[in-house]
């Protein structure tokens, strides 16, 4: 450690020691195997993340039959693409329309559809989001830069059980004939939580 007197750093080193001691003890007791820990981390760093969800959304935008299967039984439809298991055992897809915007929260902990979105960002697990998403979603959306017409219905899904919700954002204008791969680039993590809209094609050009 550097001789940094930043308070955050000294707090981090306490927890760092605590976690290290915990892992050492649990390993010594034979309850955990360190290579399995490495493998768990590697999996969520490289294999499971919002790219999975973006593929689901892009396919739903492109393929009406897949869209129908997804809306009818999201767990099976998502499994068709190989995304199954932990924190995605019971999936439901909820679709944004011109009339209704959907947004997902877990007010009681941090429930999140891991199989399609990976691990939740810090803000999703934080008190400001969890407390306010259910009471003032328009205010929350404004903080994320999203302003919806006053007449748009807003539906907030509080993930209180083991059912996990994936928001299907609206397909942006000007994307007719796009391939699924290209469409998937428009589908951000936040758009699948409901705190953003899908990117506009011009956003991709800006980034290029």
């Amino acid at each position: 450690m550097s001789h940094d007197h930043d308070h955050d750093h000294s707090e981090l080193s306490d927890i760092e020691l605590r976690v290290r001691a915990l892992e050492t003890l649990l390993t010594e007791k034979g309850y955990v195997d360190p290579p399995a820990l490495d493998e768990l981390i590697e999996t969520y760093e490289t294999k499971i993340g919002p790219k999975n969800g973006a593929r689901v959304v892009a396919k739903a935008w492109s393929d009406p039959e897949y869209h129908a299967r997804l809306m009818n039984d999201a767990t099976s439809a998502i499994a068709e693409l190989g995304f199954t298991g932990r924190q995605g055992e019971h999936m439901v897809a909820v679709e944004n329309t011109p009339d209704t915007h959907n947004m997902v929260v877990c007010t009681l902990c941090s429930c999140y559809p891991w199989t399609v979105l990976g691990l939740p960002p810090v803000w999703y697990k934080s008190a400001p989001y969890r407390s306010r998403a259910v009471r003032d979603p328009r205010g929350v959306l404004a903080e994320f830069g999203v302003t919806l017409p006053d007449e748009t219905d807003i539906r907030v899904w509080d993930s209180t059980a083991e059912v996990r919700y994936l928001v299907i954002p609206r397909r942006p204008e000007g994307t007719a004939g796009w391939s699924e791969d290209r469409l998937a680039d428009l589908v951000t993590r936040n758009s699948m939580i409901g705190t953003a809209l899908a990117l506009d094609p011009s956003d991709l050009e800006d980034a290029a």
Partner: protein
Amino acid sequence: MNGAQDLGGQMGFGPIEQEENEPNFHTKWEERAFAVTLAMGATGSWTLDASRFARETLPPADYLSSSYYEIWTMGLEKLIVENGLVSDEELLKGQALTPSKPVRRVMKAEDVAGILAKGGPVDRPEHKPAKFKIGDVIRTKRMHPEHHTRLPRYARDTIGRIEAVHGVHVFPDSNAHGHGEQPTWLYGVVFKGTDIWGPDSDPKLTLRIDLWEPYLDPA
């Protein structure tokens, strides 16, 4: 329980802090805290509901001033002691002093993909008919149990309507406390914003909450 975790509708937490291109883990210890928590869950020594209860029973001041992986770490420390896997003294010293307790499984690297892909489904066979059907109007119970529950405070004693019947799912209120799964019908219930927050609510707001049958009365 009415712990610090039950955040819906609370006020004063300030703006939502977003981070551009946020990594999964900000530090090495977060990676390890995450993985140790999952690996210990895989030993089958407690349920996911019990681990949620361990976190929500942290003192509110600790819960609200800790990052999420700190909360996980403190929850895990409680679980291993409560379940007799580690003694207080061992935790304090960071050293094994007593023989280990047998566990159902120790996760190996080659098991990880299979265990994650399988997950832990909580739907169970139907053993009695559902009390409610889609369209039924219900009132959530007024209740303040000290045990684990998944009926948030903001949605208690409120009129709602059954919008989905998810099937029979493991009941967290019992499963968190070693009283078995007691599988029970789970419903998707829709509430008007104004029924929950009163006349100040956004008039276009509805809330959808997944609730088990014992939380609901016919209205």
